[in-house]
């Protein structure tokens, strides 16, 4: 370590090796991942669908509010955790699901449910008005994000986008609560979270011993 240039070179090579081994090699493998083309499907011939512009903006709202500190966006395979048993998705998430996302938010902690397939859950998928109410009122451990909404006096006709609230949440007479642009983008992003497509690489690996089942028959 006395030879300073050699020492710096060593440090640099060590760093470059880890960079090449993890990021660069992964990019070589997955950087050009194409959507999966299913020519027989008349509605969505290519999966995943492109992210609409408003959903891409919503993903940035999701990122800056820090939603990822409580919610993940990755369903694991059936024998690895209870993700699928909890109804968060019907198959494991794979790299192809994320190719159109602007700022991928896999998340680190699960204080709330996984959102990978929020809009594709059956039969309990939430629609835009459910999500708006959830954001406005909160639910359980999910706090209310009232700052994503404006309360204002109704001028003329009530706005189409106003929240239909009842009970103690309802605004005073003559006033309405409407989502801001940020709330609309966020909800558009949440509604774009849908992985009800099949990819060859997402199918489960064949179980170890199918012979036992044949024996039973």
């Amino acid at each position, binding site marked *: 370590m006395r030879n300073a240039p050699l020492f710096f070179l060593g440090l640099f090579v060590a760093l470059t090796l880890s960079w090449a081994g993890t990021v660069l090699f992964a990019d070589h493998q997955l950087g050009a991942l194409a959507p999966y083309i299913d020519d*027989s499907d*008349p509605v969505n011939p290519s999966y995943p669908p492109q992210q609409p512009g408003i959903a891409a903006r919503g993903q940035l709202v999701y990122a800056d509010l820090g939603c990822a500190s409580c919610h993940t966006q990755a369903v694991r*395979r059936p024998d690895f955790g209870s993700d699928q048993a909890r109804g968060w998705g019907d198959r494991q998430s794979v790299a192809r699901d994320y190719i159109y996302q602007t700022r991928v938010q896999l998340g680190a902690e699960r204080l709330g449910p996984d959102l990978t397939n929020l809009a594709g859950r059956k039969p309990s998928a939430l629609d835009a008005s459910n999500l708006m109410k959830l954001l406005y009122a909160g639910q359980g451990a999910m706090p209310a994000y009232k700052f994503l909404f404006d309360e204002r006096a109704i001028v003329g006709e009530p706005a189409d986008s106003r929240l239909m609230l009842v009970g103690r949440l309802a605004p005073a007479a003559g006033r309405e609560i409407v989502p801001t642009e940020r709330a609309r983008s966020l909800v558009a992003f949440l509604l774009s979270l849908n992985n009800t497509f*099949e990819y*060859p690489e997402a199918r489960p*690996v*064949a179980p170890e011993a199918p012979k036992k089942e044949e024996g039973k028959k």
Partner: protein
Amino acid sequence: MNAPSQSDPRLEQAAVTDESLLAAHEKVLGRRPDDQGHYRLLPLNLLFVFAGLIFFSGTYLNLYSGHFNPAIYNEHAKPHTGAAEAVAVDPVALGKKIFTGTCQTCHQITGLGLPGAIPPLAGSEWVMGPEERVIRAVMYGVQGAIKVKGADFSSAMPPNGKVPGSGFNLSDDKIAAVLTYVRQEWGNTGGPITTEQVAAIHAKEGEHKQWTSEELLKIQ
């Protein structure tokens, strides 16, 4: 050697000078095994530890890295195959998906169709009838009047297979899957239909136009 005496928390006294610290440690680094070739025990143990870790790591990577294949997400996929052994697709599940995307708009999720406009599939003698007829109907479509469960219908069924004029271009295996699904759903009791059956008819009829119910009834 300068063992630290009772120290005041306000000031941790130094026991040695910087220069002697550097010199003493430099001497250790320059050290070789002694004249008899003996190493001290601890470094040898460390070597064993490191060798053991490397062996373990190599084995682990060999077993669980999926051969560095980007399509393998399950580390238990057999390394020697080099690819995940994917489970065969369940035709009923696939068929349900195709039905939802292609057929449900007209025939409805209940399979009952729309009385007077769209024939029902649930309990339909056409659906559960001979494979020869129902495959042709789905692949090439049907035009003209048709009698289903005693009621008359006249709306045309579009071609669905990979045939001229088709709006859906379903491949043979997908036709087989959707038929298999339809023939066991809503209490229907038709048997499953294989890709080979569909492919055989596709090859035989080629670019046939839409069928009429009379033509279909002639086929047994």
